[in-house]
């Protein structure tokens, strides 16, 4: 019985370490979040263009671009309402951002992230990091592009 308890404790402590190890400390991930009312093909094209514009390596570490797809709702009408509310006062909803963050966390392969769209808004930055830490990896870092 004592061994089973010990095994349980070991699993509890080792499991998170194994999970975090999936995200490499080497390498940078740039998150491309498409703007509202962007066609699906254009969203993908924007991500590809960003990858072409950026160097393939930063500080000798690989740099990759991921698409954090920002979906369209009711032909973009709902997205416009969200965007206006974000710009003027407290956002009506962070649904789109949360959905994108969930996807980013699921696809995370590195520990260093950057997203220009989120970087401009400190409250979103905090939410972004909290969500990433909770969902993917507690050691993720926020980086500033030079």
């Amino acid at each position, binding site marked *: 019985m004592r061994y089973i308890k010990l095994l349980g404790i070991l699993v509890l402590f080792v499991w998170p370490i194994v999970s975090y190890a999936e995200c490499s400390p080497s390498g940078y*991930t740039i998150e491309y979040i498409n703007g509202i009312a962007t066609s699906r*093909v254009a969203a*993908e094209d924007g991500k590809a263009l960003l*990858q072409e514009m950026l160097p*393939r390596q930063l500080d000798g570490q690989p740099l990759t671009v*991921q698409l*954090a*797809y920002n979906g369209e709702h009711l032909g973009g009408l709902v997205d416009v309402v969200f965007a206006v509310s974000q710009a003027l006062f407290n956002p009506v909803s962070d649904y789109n951002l949360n959905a994108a963050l969930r996807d980013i966390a*699921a*696809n995370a392969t590195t520990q260093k992230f950057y997203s220009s769209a989120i970087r401009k808004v400190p409250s979103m930055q905090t939410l972004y990091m909290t969500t990433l830490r909770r969902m993917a990896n507690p050691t993720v870092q926020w980086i500033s592009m030079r």
Partner: protein
Amino acid sequence: MKRKFFTLWQYIRWPLLILCSVYTGLVVYRIPAVIQKRQTQGAVVVIHVQRITLDDAMGKRLPFEPSPETRDATIAGVDVNNNGIRDDVELTLFKKYPNSVQVRAAELQYALTEQMFLTRVSNTETWKAVSEENARAQLCIIDNHTNRKEVEDLVFNTAARVKAREKAYDFITSYGPEPGEPCDISNS
């Protein structure tokens, strides 16, 4: 004892029968979803496994020029040598880059993954798998300083194919490039 068991059976038989029927119904209801899930898993593996070979890059299995009637008759087009790259696209790339194996290989790899948007996408999982391979091919294109747009123009050369690509993009989701070496054919 026997009588007690009989009385108990009288009470539980109908609830038990209902539970068993509900369970059986749920199992039968889930069968198509499970079959589809397995088919998707298989399709995703096929997408990730399909790569261009050195023979493809060297043109050892080059197809004949498809006839004008058959070339654009279907969305998938003609692929006689069955390497995943449409014959008209493959031949055009060979004509354009007769002397550079690396550039040809990078563009053939990109053409292969772009063609998959027309032939392999049926749901979000397959779209994501194709996009991961496509992003890897994009990195190979960048590493070889060549042009992805010219390949896209060749693959999506008709209104029907452009529309089919947009339809495949209905399944768009967040993703990153497939890890590993960008190019199927090593630069060394």
